C-alpha cells in the first residue's frame, strides 16, 4: 500500500512536470477531447436529465410533507444542481466511461509490450499516452460540467412547469434568489479538477497492469473505484474551500 502510494506520487509528479514540456501532441489531444467530450455527451445528458427531474420531484414531495409548501423548490433544487448534482453525476459517469476505457487501453498496451516498445524507441509513455488524455479530460470535464448543469436546470424547469405548476418565469425568479454566477464558475472548476483525476488514476493503473486478461480487468476495476472515491473526497474538499467564497 505504501509502495503504491509512493509510486503514485512519483508518477503524478512526473506527469505534471511533463505537462509543460514540448512537444505537445495537439492532434492526439484533440482526438481524445472528441472522445471524452462529444462521445460522452449523449449518455451524460440523458442521465443528468433524469437525475435533475428526480431531484426536483423529491424536493417538492418532501417540502410539501414537511412545510406544506414547495414554493422554494426551484431555488433549492437549482442550488443543489449547480453546486453538486450536475458536476458530480457527470464526473462519475465520465469515470465509468472514459476512466475504464483509458485503464483498459493503457493496460492492454502494457500487457502487449507496446509501452516497452515506446520506451525502447526513446519515447516517454507519460508524455505520449498520459498527457494528451490528461489535457482532454480536464478541458472535457469543464465543458461537460457546464453542459450538464445547463441541461439539469432546463429539465428541472420543465418538470416544475409540467408537474409542479410553476411557470418558467417563476422558476427562474426563484433560482435567481438562491444562485449566483459563482456557483456555475465553481462547478466548472470542480469539473476540471475531477476531469484531471480520471486520466491520472486510470493511466496509473493501466501502466502498472499485470499480464493477462485478468490483469487488465483488475486495472480497470481499480481505476474506476479509486477515481470515483477520489472524486467524492475531492468534492468534499473543494466544497469546503469554496464555502469560504460565498
Amino acid at each position, binding site marked *: 500500500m505504501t509502495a503504491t502510494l509512493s509510486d503514485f506520487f512519483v508518477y503524478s509528479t512526473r506527469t505534471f512536470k511533463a505537462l509543460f514540456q514540448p512537444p505537445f501532441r495537439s492532434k492526439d489531444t484533440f482526438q481524445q477531447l472528441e472522445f471524452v467530450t462529444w462521445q460522452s455527451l449523449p449518455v451524460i445528458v440523458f442521465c443528468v436529465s433524469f437525475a435533475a427531474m428526480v431531484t426536483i420531484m423529491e424536493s417538492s414531495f418532501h417540502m410539501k410533507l414537511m412545510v406544506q409548501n414547495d414554493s422554494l423548490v426551484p431555488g433549492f433544487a437549482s442550488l443543489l444542481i449547480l453546486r453538486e448534482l450536475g458536476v458530480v453525476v457527470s464526473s462519475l459517469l465520465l469515470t465509468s466511461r472514459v476512466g475504464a476505457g483509458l485503464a483498459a487501453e493503457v493496460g492492454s498496451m502494457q500487457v*502487449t*509490450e*507496446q509501452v*516497452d*516498445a515506446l*520506451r*525502447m*524507441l*526513446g*519515447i*516517454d509513455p507519460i508524455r505520449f499516452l498520459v498527457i494528451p488524455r490528461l489535457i482532454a479530460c480536464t478541458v472535457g470535464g469543464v465543458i461537460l460540467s457546464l453542459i450538464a448543469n445547463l441541461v439539469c436546470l432546463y429539465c428541472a424547469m420543465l418538470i416544475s412547469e409540467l408537474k409542479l405548476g410553476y411557470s418558467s418565469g417563476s422558476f427562474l425568479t426563484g433560482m435567481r434568489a438562491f444562485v449566483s454566477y459563482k456557483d456555475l464558475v465553481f462547478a466548472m472548476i470542480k469539473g476540471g479538477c475531477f476531469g484531471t483525476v480520471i486520466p491520472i488514476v486510470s493511466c496509473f493503473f493501466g501502466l502498472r497492469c499485470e499480464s493477462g486478461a485478468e490483469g487488465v480487468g483488475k486495472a480497470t476495476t481499480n481505476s474506476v473505484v479509486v477515481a470515483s472515491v477520489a472524486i467524492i473526497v475531492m468534492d468534499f474538499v473543494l466544497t469546503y474551500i469554496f464555502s469560504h467564497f460565498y
Partner: protein
Amino acid sequence: MIDFKNIRKSFGEREVLKGITFSVPEGQILFILGTSGTGKSVLLKTIVGLLKPSSGEVFINDREISCLSEREMFPVRRMCGMVFQQPALFDSLSIFENVAFGLRKHQPELDHAQLSARVKECLALVNLSGIEDKLPQAISYGMQKRVSLARTVAVSPRILLFDEPTTGLDPVTTNSINHLILELSRKLKTTSLVVSHDMQCALDIADHILVLDKGEIVAQGPPQTLKQSTHPLVQDFLREALNAETAH
C-alpha cells in the same frame, strides 16, 4: 561489448536472477536458452533498463547503465533495438507508420521521400512489401512479428535483442526469421542477444550459447563445446534438437 556482473533480480520474495555474470563481445550472436520462467526475458530487459536489477552491474561499452535514470537511458536505448515476445505494434497506426515511428523520433532530418524509402527497404528486408497501408490487425501474427523486426532494424541499432522471436510461428516463418537474425547480424555487424527455446536454431546460428535454469547459468560456450555438456537440461535441449532434425 556487453558485460553482466553478478546480476540479481527479485520480484517480491521471488528471486528470478541469482547472480548472473557473462560477457558478449561486439558483433557476436549470443543465444540464451532455458525453460519458461527461468528469467531469460528479465535478463534481456535489464540490458535496456526496462527492468532494473536488484543488484549487480550491466556495462555496455564499459559504461555502467543499470544505475541510469529513465531519461539517461534514452541514448543507451537509441543504440539498442528490441524485438519483443509479442509483436507490440501500435494498433492505431498503419504498418508504414509503425515502422516509421522510431525513424521520425531518431532521424527527424529525413524528408518524406527518404522516410518512405527507408520504411520500404526495411519491410523488404523481412519480405513484406506492399502492406504499408494495412493496420496491424489486418495481417497475420507471423507478419506482425516480421513488421516488429522491421521497425527495430529501421533505426539501425548496434545491439539487437530478440525475446523469443519465433514463438507461436509456423516452422517456415520460424526458419525465415532465424536466417534473418543471422543475416541482419552479419550484414549490419550488430551484437545480437536472442532469448529462445530452440536449441537447433542456436546450434545453427549462435556464436555463443548460454543455458539458464532457475535463474542461474548452468552451461555456456560455443555450440561445439555445449554439445559435449553433461548437464541434464542441456542434454534435454540437445535431444529435442536431434528429434526435430530427425523429424525434418
